[in-house]
């Protein structure tokens, strides 16, 4: 059976007494200045709450009682309202997090491709389970859900940077290197994995100067493009109806070599008829109720 670690009641937010100690005045002043910038991004200030909770984690390493109190004060919410939000989202930590969150994808596809094996190996080596932290405070281990990199399975995330095509050995090495304080380079990401606090600051919307590092696309992302180039396949040429350059909008100037699908002229749909209602369009009627999409739009 999978080692899920110590399972705690997940809806219950326990904040340790010491996490309520007030901030040092200069820390609080900086937080307020950052929070002002965040709030300025939105028409209504409550929208700033999620980034501000990331900001709390960038200062405290988890969502502390004092962080909740400060968010509540700045956004004119109750502490209960802020806690209610903080407990809903898995990236907000309820107890001190390690410097690095190592998340092994154990959703079906990665699990089958080797994620389960990676999880077992790393969990056993570190002697910790899900959402537990090594005694040296370096690594918090997590089982994570699908991280939108299935073509690179098995995938492991370290502080939410991609480590693609992992093996038990490569992940163990990565974890050992992180614990030893070495720089660790993601497969698609910046030159090195930042700490949990540094990463949390980026998630609060503050760029750290590393956006231009790393690749644009990993090898799997390029498989289709590579094949198309080998075989000379392109999208149909943009012509006739367009008076901009055929290369407009980043689309390639196709030679019309492809024969994609059948040709169809556009339908001359009038503006929405008065009776048209969201979700009642006939062309959508093949949708069963069970759709990851919609019951109407």
């Amino acid at each position, binding site marked *: 059976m999978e080692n899920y670690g110590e399972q705690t009641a997940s809806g219950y937010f326990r904040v340790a007494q010491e996490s309520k100690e007030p901030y040092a005045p200069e820390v609080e002043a900086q937080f307020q200045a950052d929070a002002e910038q965040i709030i300025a991004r939105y028409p209504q200030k409550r929208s700033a709450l999620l980034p501000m909770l990331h900001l709390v984690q960038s200062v405290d390493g988890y969502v502390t009682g004092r962080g909740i109190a400060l968010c509540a004060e700045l956004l004119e919410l109750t502490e209960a309202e802020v806690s209610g939000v903080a407990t809903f989202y898995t990236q907000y930590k309820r107890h001190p997090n390690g410097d690095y969150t190592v998340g092994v994808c154990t959703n079906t596809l990665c699990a089958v491709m080797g994620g389960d094996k990676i999880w077992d190996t790393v969990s056993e080596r570190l002697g910790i389970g899900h959402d537990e932290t090594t005694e040296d405070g370096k690594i918090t281990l997590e089982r994570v859900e699908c991280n939108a990199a299935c073509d690179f399975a098995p995938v492991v995330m370290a502080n939410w940077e991609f480590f693609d095509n992992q093996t038990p050995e490569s992940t163990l090495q990565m974890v050992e290197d992180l614990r030893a304080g070495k720089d660790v380079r993601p497969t698609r990401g910046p030159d090195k994995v930042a700490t949990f606090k540094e990463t949390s600051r980026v998630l609060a919307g503050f760029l750290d100067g590393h956006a231009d590092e790393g690749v644009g696309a990993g090898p799997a992302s390029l498989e289709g493009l590579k094949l198309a180039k080998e075989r000379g396949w392109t999208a149909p040429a943009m012509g006739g109806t367009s008076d901009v350059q055929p290369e407009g909008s980043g689309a390639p100037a196709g030679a019309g070599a492809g024969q994609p699908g059948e040709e169809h002229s556009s339908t001359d749909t009038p503006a929405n008829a008065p009776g048209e209602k969201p*979700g009642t369009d006939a062309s959508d009627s093949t949708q069963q109720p069970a759709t990851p*999409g919609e019951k109407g739009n």
Partner: protein
Amino acid sequence: MTTLTPILSATWDDPRSWTLETYERAGGYAALKKALGMSKEDLVQLTKDSGLRGRGGAGFPTGMKWGFLPPPDGGPRYLVVNADESEPGTCKDIPLMMANPQVLIEGVAITSFAIGCDHAFIYLRGEVVHVYRRLLRAVEEAYAAGHLGKDIHGSGFNLDVTVHAGAGAYICGEETALLDSLEGRRGQPRLKPPFPAVAGLYARPTVVNNVESIASVPSIVSGGADWFGGMGTEKSKGYGIFSLSGHVTRPGQYEAPLGITLRELLDMAGGIRNGHELKFWTPGGSSTPLFTQEHLDVPLDFESVGAAGSMLGTRALQIFDETTCVVRAVDRWTDFYKHESCGKCTPCREGTWWLKQIMGRLEHGQGTEEDLDKLLDICDNVLGRAFCALGDGATSPITSSIKYFRDEYVAHLTQGGCPFDRDAATVFATNQKVNA
């Protein structure tokens, strides 16, 4: 034969594909300039004529969605881009935004202009920090070049774009939960109607569209409706990114006209991994009913996949060969739905919990044959009764796997455990074979 049509992915192999410079060199932002010279009505009409349907799963006609906004009343209206991409198997928007964030920003600018929005939002899932960096940087670059901000290219059109990071919750991909989350609340779905077009973000008229939908807009403006509609099928027009993952020789992103088949895609991807054969697959993520070998020639468009008993969804083709235990696969997906159920409605909150209990004991050989009927009975009570489509989606893998692989469930009971060797299914098993 259908061939690939790289459009959104055409520049991904450029060494600095994500920069504005690369994007403009390939003709980027010509579509915005063209659009700014058109009327809003013509842009909406063009999008309708193109036949573009939402790429986020449901396939709702995009132009029509824009057309649902009530007439301007002087107050704000919003565009919110759904970049939450969390449906298991779905992995197209994230590489798109990492490699070419500018095409999304250009699409956001054109769409905002068309619907009369001066503040757009991109809601990105929080678990992809490098993609967040790329988007923030892309917005910075676009402002500096005058593609965003005040009086864009002298048109008098103003637009601000805020890129917002979520914090880990699949349900925030559901558009109304996303809006609640963006308002700083727990991400739980809202009752519809009112639809977002009428009362969305801050109760104002709002368009919510998927990343790929919005990123397709510049190409439609440049190429025209006929160009776009020249790809795809009669009712599922245009191109889309097909994501192949799992037991295939070359998993990856394949941009092709809608209506391509898995057989064709597999052929391009080098087939099922060496020495193995296809067992089951998802056409559009874990929430879409499983397909098997018999569906290899189903055209991957909205109508054909629907007629064959599943849904096109997000074109997330997760491929599993005969080494994979379907019960184990479904058990793990069920764990996911249980974990991600937001708890708002009883059928899903309680149903997914029970489904997981039963799936778990079946996989470990501790169930009974009545459990299969119990599973179907619970699914019947969730499907169509849950508040949002997450609950419905949770039933898809279960009901479809029982339909096609009932014997395999039974084998777990008769053998008192899972009959499969987990190691054989891993990618390391393949590598060892190749190395040996």
